[in-house]
């Protein structure tokens, strides 16, 4: 399994980037992902951004739960 945390890209320099999360800053390699831009959220694992995170999609998922639950409540 693989520990990975969401971080936000703040600076890009070649295939390296500075990513931040809650007052924590680290250099990460972006060699494994394409088309990364500033302010993108990425998943960081062993010093590598392994994939971008779609925050809007994450929020949509959450909204689906709330609706689903209120439906069941009504029944």
């Amino acid at each position: 399994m693989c520990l990975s945390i969401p971080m936000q890209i703040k600076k890009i320099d070649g295939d390296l980037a500075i990513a931040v999360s809650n007052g924590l800053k680290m250099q990460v390699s972006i060699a494994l992902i394409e088309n990364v831009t500033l302010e993108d959220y990425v998943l960081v694992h062993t010093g590598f951004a392994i994939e971008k995170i779609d925050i809007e999609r994450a929020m949509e998922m959450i909204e689906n739960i709330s609706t689903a639950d209120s439906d069941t409540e009504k029944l």
Partner: protein
Amino acid sequence: MTKELQTYRNADLAKSLLRQIEKEVSRPLRIMEVCGGHTMAIHKYGINNLLPDDIQLISGPGCPVCVTPVAYMDILLQIAMQPDVIIASYGDLMRVPGNLGNLEAVRAKGADVRLVISPLDALKKAKENPGKKVVFPAIGFETTAPGTAVALLKAREMDVDNFFVLASHRTMPEAMQKLASGKINIDGFIGPGHVSCITGSDVYGFLASKYGIPVVISGFEPIDLLMSLLMILKQARLSKAVVENQYDRAVKPAGNVQAQKIMYSVFESCDAEWRGLGKINGSGLEIRESFGKWNALQHFKTSPVASNEDKRCICGKILTGLKDPGQCPLFGAQCTPEQPVGACMVSHEGTCNAWYRFKFMSNGNNTSTSRQRRKINA
């Protein structure tokens, strides 16, 4: 945790999902989380004791530490004891036992063992220590292997000749195939979220179509896991078996194609041994011949060590959900978290390790798990 994702740890949402789960349970179900990270999150948030009694969670083989074979550790430990060698290792491997002890033990005997959190740190150590040979034990699944590949590509690019990789990467779909094709007692899989970032969700299709087992790729926050469980329960109630992707904020159907390309430019598939599961065809990644110069296996001479693996260990059956730790003759006697024999006792999240700690804390009876269960909306 970024602010936007904080909702994925929200207690009210969790309660709401648990209410839905209660309503959705139609029969006793055994659900396997194959990924050690999911096992960890389940314990960390206490999800296991919030679920209805009918749902049993089983931890699968998705912990790279647990499945690392003893023979690999013996090679690593022999290399560590050679002169002018620095082992730059992830902390995970430090206490994994081989026949020759573990990394902490050889460090106590004088080996130079240092911790890193990235293969690029290990490469950096090689550049900083030109008179030494820096060996990076590369464990982990598809999530981790592409990073190792980048380090090897950099080593070639910068012509670093004192950096070596001892590769023991494993690939997940092959292991799940082996689990599903054998004698197994599993009603649904929680799919590995971060592995799937690389592999994509499509690779698990066969589990649903061929073996009829529902799969839901899941994120690692408590809300992710509860949603995924609910999705599996819905499939079970409707007698469906498809691959669903709860973690689609990061996992695409085809995965991270760039990372796959980089990974396979350095590695090629091979058969590989899994502690507890035996040999699985095509489930390993070995360093391609063109990168042989950096392959620790080619550079260092080691010899096979007589195995003292205890044949009574039933880890394989525990990893496939066929047996409980309580049915193992070694459990709690010869095999404890301080002196682990089998894979499932090695990592803190291993099934046996978790069982042991519960038993220990409740003075020898194993009923605390059920005693601690509380129904949220009873």
